[in-house]
């Protein structure tokens, strides 16, 4: 990793760390920012499989649910601290990913079939947890309300979770940069561009796709554990196909794998803010308007700009910079 890679991460972290203070810790805005960070971390993790490896994975909700149930069950039954439960949840998620992913790559499922198999896994797990009364079941299982204790990681406000997610986001961004610069990263990009060609060049396609999947599943499982802490309960509806779709939509619109990795949190920030604005203003008359927006933006972006918005941001940034520099030059 180079120093130039760290600079934008440091700048972004500083900016995001100051945001809750900028809204004066207003509960509503902090909650909104927490969800934005939550989806940002998910999309950034998704970039490993969806962007670098180019596999349209729709199993994010499977890993979130598994992470949530692992952490939550350990916490409520055995009083195991989330500090241990969260990474264990990541491991369970990665284990499940290996279980489904190995044969999926072994039998060469690609494109639509991969997407269908992964979204099916979400529904399968949701129904299995609904029937499995010992752990899941149709009733919510609440996490212990031991607020303010570091051992339980439960807090009354959302600000602590915001900073936890910020730390995770930084780690996932660093992970992405590191992978992108490694041999694995170059191999994955080769697979993304042309799988057959990559295979002929001697890349073990299956191995590297599986590696990308496992990394992504582990991170997403950990985020799932944090999600359960924020929502405060466990329920089979945490295996939510819409979460999977949302992550993929944000990834595609953000141009995962094409441009800069920072395009993904930026896209999440923009789209989530607009959709929340729509929900809070028009949601009373038109329920689901904020979700309609997701559908519209995805279809429009894919039809008009199939490579996503990352390049648009860069051009915009370049233009703003040039204008500022010109003004400074003119003023001085």
């Amino acid at each position: 990793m180079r120093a130039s890679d760290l600079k934008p991460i440091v700048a972004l972290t500083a900016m995001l760390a100051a945001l809750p203070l900028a809204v004066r810790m207003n509960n509503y805005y902090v909650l909104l920012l927490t969800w934005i960070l939550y989806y940002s971390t998910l999309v950034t993790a998704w970039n490993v499989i969806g962007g670098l490896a180019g596999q349209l994975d729709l199993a994010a909700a499977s890993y979130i649910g598994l992470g949530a149930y692992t952490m939550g069950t350990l916490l409520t039954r055995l009083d195991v601290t989330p500090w241990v439960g969260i990474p264990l949840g990541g491991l369970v998620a990665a284990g499940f990913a290996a279980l489904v992913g190995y044969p999926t790559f072994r039998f060469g499922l690609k494109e639509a079939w991969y997407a269908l198999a992964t979204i099916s896994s979400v529904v399968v797990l949701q129904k299995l947890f609904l029937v499995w009364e010992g752990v899941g079941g149709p009733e919510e299982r609440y996490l212990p309300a031991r607020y303010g204790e570091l051992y339980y990681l439960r807090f009354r406000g959302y600000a602590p979770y915001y900073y936890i997610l910020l730390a995770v986001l930084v780690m996932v961004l660093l992970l992405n940069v590191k992978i992108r610069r490694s041999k694995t990263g170059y191999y994955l990009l080769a697979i993304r561009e042309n799988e057959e060609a990559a295979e002929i060049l001697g890349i073990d396609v299956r191995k590297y796709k599986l590696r990308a999947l496992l990394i992504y599943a582990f991170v997403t499982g950990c985020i799932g554990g944090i999600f359960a802490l924020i929502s405060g309960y466990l329920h089979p509806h945490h295996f939510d196909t819409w979460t999977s779709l949302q992550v993929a939509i944000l990834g595609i619109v953000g141009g995962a794998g094409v441009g800069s990795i920072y395009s993904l949190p930026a896209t999440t920030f923009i789209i989530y803010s607009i959709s929340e604005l729509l929900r809070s203003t028009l949601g009373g008359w038109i329920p689901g308007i904020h979700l309609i927006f997701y559908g519209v933006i995805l279809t429009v972006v894919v039809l008009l700009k199939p490579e996503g918005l990352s390049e648009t941001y860069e051009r915009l940034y370049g233009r703003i910079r040039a204008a500022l520099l010109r003004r400074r030059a003119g003023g001085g």
Partner: protein
Amino acid sequence: MLELLLQNLVNGILMGCVYALVALGLALQFGVMDIINFAHGEFVMIAMYLVFWISLYLAIPGSLTSLIVAPIYFVFGLVVYKLVIDRIVGTYPLAQIAATIGLMVLLRNLALAAWRAQPRGLQYEVLRGSVTLGPVVVPISRLTAALVSVGTMLALHWFLTHTRLGLALRATSDDMQAASLLGINVRRMFALAFGLGCAIIGIAAAFIMTFQQVNPESGLTWGLISWIIVVMAGLGGVSGVLLSGLILGMVEALEITFWDPRASLAVMYSLFILILWVKPRGLFGRR
């Protein structure tokens, strides 16, 4: 137990026919133009709402609305084809998946906006009651739906094998370039296939509504069921789709009899993933 099994199996076979009809619309579109339509289930869901409203406002039985909904849906299919599908046919698959996922999210939430989350069922329907055959009770509505499904499939099969237009469709499906060289307007065939696929959905939706309710979420289930059948059938014509539908219906029946009805989707999708792994070309595919 045996009676329950028998009853569930009969239900499963009847449902299987309906599943097959819904999947046939998708199979036609996928077979002819290789398009990956994730919004298929949402098309079914919107058609079901259409049936509900037409039946309510014109005060006609839901089953009769198929005569109105099918042509409306044919036109709807052409419009969707022109607006979205035409631009993504033949482009790289991820763009197709993404664009139709966008369509799916859009339609699902438009339905939510228009009709809220509350389930809707027909107010008035002539297909009521049931016939008793020994230990098995067969609801008239399901029986009719199954018969209409099989009838529609036979009609489509005849169309594909005995008319010039049908043959042109199949030629396009087999080899797009060769068909184009022989003077078949491929784009028009695509539009026709998409419209026909949607019209079939319209017919199916009308008869599904006679025994089921609709809510904005029901699209997901119908979409995944259709995909299971299309994958199981492979690209092998109408009979493969029907057989796959029947298999799926019976698997569901067995699951309901011997395990928990709430887990039936889990079993069906596990089967789906399994088939994707071991027989990606389907059980009845010819290529």
